[in-house]
């Protein structure tokens, strides 16, 4: 309650809070997941700390009941640990995140969850399974809840870190992609292109998603709001994944040509990714557009020498 009301904690209150925490950890054997999470959440919200030893006991109690915990409880607990700047042991973090991944379809995003997954070391310092679960959660939050824009950023960051040599479990990725495909009509081009980009980093061909994207209504919706970056990322992903669809690449290149006529803001990377994708996919009929793109790029060329 104090956390939700935005109260601040004076020194004397802080001592009392620690006494309460001490009493609470004595009673952990009878605590329920929501209770543990509420305590962690409240303390973090008050910008206070649970001493590491007590935090460890509380997380252990939560992990032991992870099957009973609501996805929101797990998400909030992860957020709280990250907010306090603390770490939980790798194995426990993995169990918590996998518990959340298994029920992602029931989960609402915590606005800071993705950020704090990064904060609590779920990507950079954790093992493959934990990092994979963290990415899955971030992707879900990114694609399911467009307003949680920060999630996209952390998904991409997490994906990049994973792509340095780890793989996301196929099952988790399928779950996320199915959710994206289901909401394809309402998701933003950025979420589609980011997800395809992440899939390419994971070396996973999201066949059903790509097939769905080529349906006329989805393709029109994607293209109408897509920026040069979205088009370039999507083309790059197709090239990396050897997804040789004339329908998709033709549409992307046509829209690219339109945006060039409208003097949209293209960066060097966009020109290069688009042209490269056509070359890798051996789409000879798109050579004229490639030449047009390279000519435009040549005019803006900044020598690297």
């Amino acid at each position, binding site marked *: 309650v104090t956390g939700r009301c935005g109260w601040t904690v004076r020194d004397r209150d802080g001592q009392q809070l620690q006494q309460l925490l001490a009493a609470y950890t004595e009673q952990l054997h009878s605590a329920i997941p929501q209770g543990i999470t509420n305590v962690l959440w409240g303390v973090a919200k008050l910008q206070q700390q649970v001493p590491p030893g007590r935090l460890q006991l509380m997380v252990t109690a939560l992990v032991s009941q992870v099957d009973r915990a609501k996805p929101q409880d797990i998400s909030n607990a992860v957020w709280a640990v990250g907010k306090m700047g603390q770490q939980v042991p790798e194995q426990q973090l993995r169990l918590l995140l996998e518990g959340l991944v298994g029920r992602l379809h029931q989960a609402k995003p915590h606005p800071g969850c993705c950020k704090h997954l990064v904060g609590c070391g779920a990507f950079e310092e954790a093992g493959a399974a934990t990092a994979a679960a963290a990415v899955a959660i971030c992707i879900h939050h990114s694609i399911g809840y467009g307003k949680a824009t920060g999630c996209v950023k952390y998904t991409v960051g997490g994906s990049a870190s994973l792509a340095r040599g780890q793989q996301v479990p*196929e099952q988790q990725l399928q779950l996320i992609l199915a959710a994206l495909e289901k909401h394809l009509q309402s998701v933003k081009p950025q979420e589609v292109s980011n997800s395809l980009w992440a899939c390419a980093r994971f*070396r*996973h*061909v999201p*066949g059903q998603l790509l097939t769905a994207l080529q349906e006329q209504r989805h393709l029109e919706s994607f293209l109408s709001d897509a920026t040069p970056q979205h088009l370039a990322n999507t083309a790059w992903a*197709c*090239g*990396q*994944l*050897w997804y040789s669809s004339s329908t998709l690449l033709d549409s992307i290149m046509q829209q690219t040509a339109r945006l060039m006529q409208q003097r949209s803001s293209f960066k*060097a*990377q966009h*020109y*290069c*990714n688009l*042209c*490269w*994708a*056509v*070359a*890798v*996919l*051996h789409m*000879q009929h798109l*050579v004229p557009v*490639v*030449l047009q793109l*390279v*000519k435009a*790029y*040549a005019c803006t*060329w*900044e*020598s*690297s*020498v």
Partner: protein
Amino acid sequence: VTEGLQQLHQVHIWLQQLQLSEQPQGLSGVLSEQQLSECAVAWELQRCSNATAAASLLQQQVMAALQQLPSSMWQGEMRMESVTPDGNLSIDIAAVTAAGVQLAIELDGPTHFVSPGNRLNGPTQFRNRMLAAQGYTVISIPYWEWDACKTAQQRHEHLMFPTTR
């Protein structure tokens, strides 16, 4: 920027390989000589970097196994990290069979494949197409196939079939 230049060099060699009547010289004429040179340098740096990193245990194992095959199968010596005549691509192991077939033997690790289906990814398909366009017969040895060969005899048999051409 460097990655973009490397990509443009790939576009350049792809267009050259297509030999289109309207654009026979790749991106020459679209990019200046200076710009093309920058792309080529960026690509060359990456090629050299990959070639150094690619001298893997797997590569050495395959080379050793190839050298166990009868010498009558080959013309000349096999070479690791051989560079194609146009200077654009490195070949893990290059060899010429007794029948005069130029082989490009590529040891493809996990990063060369996409799932599901363990298909070669786009950059690797591009590499293979460019090698084929230069007259090479490409033999891709996926890492899992090689890993499955536990004995010298199995490795010998695994290499015997594709290299007997």
